[in-house]
């Protein structure tokens, strides 16, 4: 395997990881601040993609589509928080899982009712289409580079938000001691709505960015949701930094598994079986990674025990 191919796969892993981070950041933020397991996070990702596809279809502008995805997902998130999630904070995780699972079904069938059962069209904008030749002779899609850029910018923005702003202080305080910051006069219910909408907006952004190179269809969020949960468990639940490191680890491990395991299987099981066995093993690689991390650090890489 040549160095160029190796570097290209490294970029692919990075891009996949960055995309997962956008999903996982919202999920871990919501869990960290409110102690809520939100299975409907994947549905918000889907809402972002559908909003982007609709607006891109109407206006032809990809940037407007991204804005629409952020706005629609944040609005849906705020609405869901006010109508449903608010009643779940005091309950145990099983009730939360049940209620947010119901939300998945309602939002999925609602989307089908509005948009029909056939996938929507959303494409990469012309100014980001096609490959660009990187130093070293790697032809890499311009759009994927842009996704890496956006993801890193969001990560930096979130780090600044958490560490350097008043909202960030409240979020951290909310994680540490809910009753105390409520007693100090912070409007905790408004803070919760805000954090939920922020997490939803990140999921919506991920949905729109990914929708341009994947399929915009009902149920698109659930496979990503599972990966996002793996990411936050590896990173430590509630930690943005953990989500970032976890997402990159998962992205790189998954890509490396898909590329190398079939090759590694070749001498063991023969050419006939290598492709199937390698592929089967590659699909469990990230779960093996999760298990290994949990053996060494039961609370995840950056989790508090």
């Amino acid at each position: 395997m040549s160095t160029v191919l190796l570097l290209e796969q490294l970029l692919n892993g990075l891009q996949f990881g960055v995309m997962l981070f956008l999903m996982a950041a919202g999920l871990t933020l919501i869990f960290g601040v409110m102690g809520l397991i939100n299975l409907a996070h994947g549905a918000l990702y889907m809402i972002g993609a559908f909003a982007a596809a609709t607006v891109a279809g109407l206006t032809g502008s990809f940037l407007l589509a991204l804005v629409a995805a952020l706005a629609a997902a944040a609005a849906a998130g705020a609405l869901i928080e006010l109508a449903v999630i608010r009643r779940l904070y005091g309950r145990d995780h099983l009730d939360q899982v049940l209620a947010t699972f119901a939300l998945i079904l309602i939002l999925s069938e609602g989307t089908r009712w509005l948009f029909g059962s056939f996938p929507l069209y959303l494409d990469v904008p012309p100014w980001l289409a096609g490959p660009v030749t990187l130093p070293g002779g790697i032809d890499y899609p311009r759009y994927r580079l842009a996704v890496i850029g956006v993801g890193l910018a969001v990560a930096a923005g979130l780090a600044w938000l958490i560490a350097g702003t008043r909202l960030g202080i409240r979020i951290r305080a909310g994680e540490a001691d809910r009753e105390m910051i409520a007693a100090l006069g912070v409007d905790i219910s408004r803070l919760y709505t805000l954090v939920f909408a922020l997490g939803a907006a990140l999921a919506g952004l991920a949905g729109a960015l990914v929708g341009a190179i994947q399929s915009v269809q009902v149920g698109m969020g659930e496979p990503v949701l599972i990966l996002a949960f793996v990411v936050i468990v590896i990173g430590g639940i509630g930690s943005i930094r953990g989500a970032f490191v976890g997402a990159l680890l998962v992205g790189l491990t998954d890509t490396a598994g898909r590329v190398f395991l079939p090759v590694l299987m070749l001498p063991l099981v023969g050419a006939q079986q290598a492709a199937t066995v390698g592929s089967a093993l590659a699909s469990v690689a990230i779960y093996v990674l999760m298990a290994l991390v949990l053996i060494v650090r039961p609370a995840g890489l950056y989790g508090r025990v």
Partner: protein
Amino acid sequence: MTVKGLMAAALVATMAVGAAAAAEDGLKVGMITTLSGGGAGLGIDVRDGFLLAVKQAGAPIAVIVEDDQQKPDIAVQLADKLIQAEQVDVMTGIIFSNIAMAVVPSAVVQGRLYLSPNAGPSQLAGAACDPNYFNVAWQNDNLHEAAGAYANSAGLANTFILAPNYPAGQDALTGFKRFYTGELAGELYTTLGQTDYAAEIAQIRASGADSVFFFLPGGMGISFLKQYSDSGVDMPVIGPAFSFDQGILQAVGAAALGVRNTSQWSPDLDNPTNAAFVESFQAEYGRLPSLYASQGFDTANLLISAMGKADFADRDAFRAALKEADFDSTRGAFRFNTNQHPIQDIYVREVIQDGDIFTNRIVATALRDHGDAYAADCPME
């Protein structure tokens, strides 16, 4: 999420006397198909094609439609309900092979006729074939075999092949290799439901292949094609019709233009039945029909043709009438093999843009009078 069974009342003759008399004059058909979840577009098209044929013929057929949600366990419950409570005569509708394998063997043992409008798993074509089971679509390997044959005739000699790692994916690559005589630049299995193919595309680029064959149904195919087209790799792509069908072409857009795909049907297939079907389907539902819609339409017309020839109560005569396949198929010549699976022509289509609409047109015939590789294992004659 359970969609309530809806009585599609095409029961012109039986309306006055009630459902109890349906078994006497007409037939009761139980349709289990996928109407929610990621595969819903397929089930909706099969259902709409089937109901259109029943409506056009004014046939005394009552259709009970149920949604299996793409889950075998739900489908098994629905089948029990249709057979025991509703006492249906004929069953049809299943899209996915794993669901067909869960439902069909037990339904045919209980004396129900099953007409498959889509799934054609190899087991049911070979040793487990059954006099009560008719496949009106294709055996699963057929379109992939045609793609292999087309690759040869197009002079492709070093193809990279990929499919998801599940039974139908493995059958797809086996089917392709059964007819393809060139070299393989690589063979890859992806995870079922995978949405990001950057790593695979990088391997394709590095492999030195001259073409790519892939079987990635539904959303997986949309993702792959968009990413492939954006990656700057420009070798020709071939695949079975499933990844290039009417339901998903609009979502893929220009990325699919020029792609060659194999199908037993195409909207421009030149015969009077098909022209009338395409026109009436558009008039009824406001969209172009897909491969699946044509299969649903043909399935209903096969059933209607048998009803005109034999009494359902005389089951042997009715089965014989079905086996004659004396109906005007949307795909032209159609007959049944000894295992009651189709013998038909399979075409090569090209994705074109017609105004705002992306669709397919036929460019060649890949295989003529093609049966399947499993008929020899079927004990029926």
